């Protein structure tokens, strides 16, 4: 499909159309306390598309912080289980950041290998992700180092790039194409070839800006990690880490969860799954009280290993999109890009940027 453009005015109409048709529309919105969140909107004017990175990523729209898995009712010995629905109403995310969109696609792999998580994919299928290319945020961005970029289309169904008076739009997936076809009236063909050039220039600028922050050789990183479990680096890596898990909660790719039962009275209750994180001490505690991951250094090592060694080994992708949220959120000043830089130096992986994956 050929690239399209859409104006701000058409976007307003577009959102109104979607909402009227019963589609849930989510976009970055500036909250009362000044921060930006992905939130439901009813009018495009509520959205803050070009604002800073939202506080949390998109993952919560597919793996909510808490969700019921089923509820039960207990009789005398017998139990009745009431399932939850695994089909979801149509949903459009408008103005997703490429790092957030990419993360969702990366997570499709773990959510779908062997056992298919219906709750995740139910929401995935109901959702169309319209991303907007990112100009780069600050010194903690390192999407380019993870093999993605501020203009990466991974995980997006449609990608918009800001241009004068609106956006340059490309359909990435068949779903995206169908979406454009369905709403064809809102999109225009690219009339001026300069628009394409401007869009590409915007992206190139963003890429080089982010690339200044960090460059990595992912394969070298991965191979170093694979053989450096006992490296002395880990012994003091996380002294300043509180094990609070703020990083995991803002991370677009951290997906660990807990399953808990919540009784509601004598007979009834709900089993839920809740976000969890390997950064807390109790995450790995066995019923016997034995905790195989003994201290915070080991827990932080697990986080790095899982993202840059274990997940790529298993699924061929690093479990990180370089959004930098963890570094920004950390109350103790832990800084993943800095850690990666250190490892890269150790691994000889700090060479010129490679087109990984």
């Amino acid at each position, binding site marked *: 499909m050929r690239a399209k453009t859409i104006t701000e005015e058409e976007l307003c109409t577009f959102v109104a159309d979607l909402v009227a048709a019963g589609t849930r529309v989510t976009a970055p919105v500036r909250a009362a306390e000044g921060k930006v969140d992905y939130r439901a909107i009813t009018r495009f004017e509520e959205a803050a598309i070009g604002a800073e990175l939202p506080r949390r990523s998109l993952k919560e729209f597919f793996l909510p912080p808490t969700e019921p898995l089923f509820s039960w009712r*207990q*009789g*005398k*010995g017998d139990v009745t289980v009431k399932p939850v629905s695994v089909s979801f109403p149509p949903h459009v995310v408008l103005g997703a950041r490429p790092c957030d969109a990419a993360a969702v696609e990366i997570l499709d792999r773990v959510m779908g290998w062997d056992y298919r998580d219906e709750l995740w994919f139910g929401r995935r299928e109901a959702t169309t992700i319209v991303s907007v290319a990112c100009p780069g945020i600050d010194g903690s961005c390192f999407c380019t180092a993870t093999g993605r970029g501020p203009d990466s289309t991974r995980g997006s169904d449609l990608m918009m790039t800001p241009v004068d008076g609106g956006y340059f739009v490309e359909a990435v997936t068949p779903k995206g194409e169908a979406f454009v076809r369905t709403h064809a009236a809102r999109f225009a063909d690219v009339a001026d070839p300069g628009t394409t050039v401007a869009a590409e220039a915007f992206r190139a600028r963003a890429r080089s800006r982010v690339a200044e922050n960090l460059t990595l050789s992912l394969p070298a990183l991965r191979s170093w990690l694979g053989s450096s479990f006992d490296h002395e680096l880990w012994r003091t890596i996380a002294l300043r880490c509180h094990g609070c898990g703020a990083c995991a909660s803002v991370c677009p790719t951290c997906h660990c969860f807990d399953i808990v039962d919540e*009784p*509601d*009275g*004598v*007979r009834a209750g709900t089993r839920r799954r809740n976000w969890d994180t390997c950064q807390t001490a109790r995450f790995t505690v066995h019923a016997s009280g034995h905790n195989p991951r003994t201290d915070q250094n080991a827990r932080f090592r697990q986080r790095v290993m899982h993202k840059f060694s274990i997940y790529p080994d298993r699924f061929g992708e690093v479990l990180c999109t370089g959004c930098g949220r963890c570094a920004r959120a950390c109350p103790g000043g832990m800084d993943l890009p800095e850690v990666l830089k250190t490892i890269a130096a150790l691994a000889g992986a700090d060479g010129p940027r490679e087109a990984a994956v």
Partner: protein
Amino acid sequence: MARIGVFVCHCGENIGRTVDCARVAEELGKLPGVAHAIDYKYMCSDPGQALIKQAIAEKKLTGVVVAACSPHMHEKTFRRACGSAGLNPFLCEMANVREHCSWIHEDRDAATDKAVDLARFIVEKVKRNVPLETIRIPVTKRALVIGGGIAGIQAALDLADGGAEVILVEKEPSIGGHMSQLSETFPTLDCSQCILTPRMVEVYQHPNIKLMAYSEVAEVGGYIGNFDVKIRQKARYVDAANCNGCGACQKACIVRKVPSEFDEKLGKRTAIYVPFPQAVPNIPVIDRASCAYFKAKAKGVKKDACGKCKEACSKGAIDYEQADTFVTEKVGAIVVATGYTLYSIGKDQPEGLRGYGEYGYGTIPDVIDGLQFERLASASGPTAGKILRPSDGKEPKRIVFLQCVGSRDPAKGIEYCSKICCMYVAKHTMLYRHKVHDGQATVFYMDIRANGKGYDEFVRRAIEEDGARYVRGRVSRMYRDGETIKVQGFDTLSGEPVVIDADMVVLATAIRPQPGIEQLAQKLSASYDAHGFFNEAHPKLRPVETNTAGVYLAGACQAPRDIPDSVAMASAAAAKILGLFSKAELEREPTVAKVDAALCAGCFHCERVCPYGAITRIEVRDRKGNLVKIVAEVNPGVCQGCGTCQATCPSKSVELQGFTDEQIWSEINALLA
């Protein structure tokens, strides 16, 4: 799943009239985990209890809920029934559907719904109950009595006569306490020493009593049945084993003008002395501060300056090198009988108290306190029983007695009544008139409190037969006018100011606890009130116990007491202890708190809130013996089961057995059926 039996009692018509007991049983029967639910006319009757026992056996019940009256009424009954059927008694609980339901509601539907709810809570609780075993603590059948006044003597003798070994610790060189200083006692005017001295000797000679005079309690460890008490025996510089009490040393002593404590500074003693002739033990002690030998030593004089007593002692009992010694005794119970002290009329006052500048702060020599008057009136006193005033030794013809000096005077820091002053002032006026027939006693009083057997008659006698003049009112000022003391007051009955000329003034000063009592209380983990008197465990029901199990009270350490009250308390405490000692083991309800050492972080909030000092600190070490942390532990012998520690524990790492978090959570969760 649990197999709970629910037994709904009609209590005749008492419950059945307003609660549909059959429906309660039916509804409860539908709950998960309820294996058996019936209603019956009288659950507490023999056939009712038989139903429970039968169901326990036949239905293999894992818990029993009796929905009936208040657990205060029949919990013991039903737990006993369960116990006899082989079910741990603590797996049985009651739901109160009578006092809390049928008796207070008329609407049958509402009352029945409520009864179902109440029983459901308890069913859910009982699902979480675990078998508990009665706690058994071995008891050391020895008692420690602290204080050798009349209360301590009485307690020691009662205990010893009851077969218990007793250690009696007295901080002064002799037992006897304040009672030994008194001349006569109210309301019978019998001679104090005549009744006390034989008791003192009895203590000395009793095979079950180990008397440790001139000693103090240094440390107290352990708990009821198992206290370890470290006692400091102060150096007497006289070898008690060799001394035969002949008195030669005192005759030889060159320091003869030390004010006598026993005579309340109205008489003199030597530096080596026994406080009074009937002292028990009759072994002298050297007062280091006034002894010429020790003074010289302190100044660095190399050659012995004195040593007269040593020379005089034919037994070689004088030992200037003696030092304080410590012994540790194991006891099962402790009686505190530390008595009282008098509010000082001087300028130096403890914190919170203000002395009486308006009475001259003790600068007028003929203004004395009640105990000093006792010494003047005593045949064994410094004046051999003659009433002579201290300043010039003349016989006072006009004595003014002031009641409530300190007492009942919040402005001076003491709001309580000292209880005994009304009586002893009346006694003093009588003793005075009996000795000085033309003397006039005038008493300033607020009101007369004479509520004991023969007390009011006694006061009346003082007024009517012995001519004491009672003026209701307070004295605002006293000052010297030549040899006379002007006592300026206000007669509140006549509404007139009065000024009375006196030759001597006796102040009935307030009864205060002994100094140092707070420290002793802390050693015992016992609490004390704002004035420093020991707190009883319950003002009505446990008046001679403290909140520390195994520590008992006798006499004026708890509040101002007269002799009969003190003796009664002492006997009561002894009876309590003999009861405790009557069994080899102490049995306690197992509803005590338990700390999970793995989860305790050692913040010790529990220690701060525990009213009983039941929390101790223990070290947790790893396999290699390295200290991991220090955590709290509950001494089940001391814990009374209030559970304040658990509510205070931030992480809920201490659980009160019988009221665990799981049990209470389950009850609350059961708000939703």
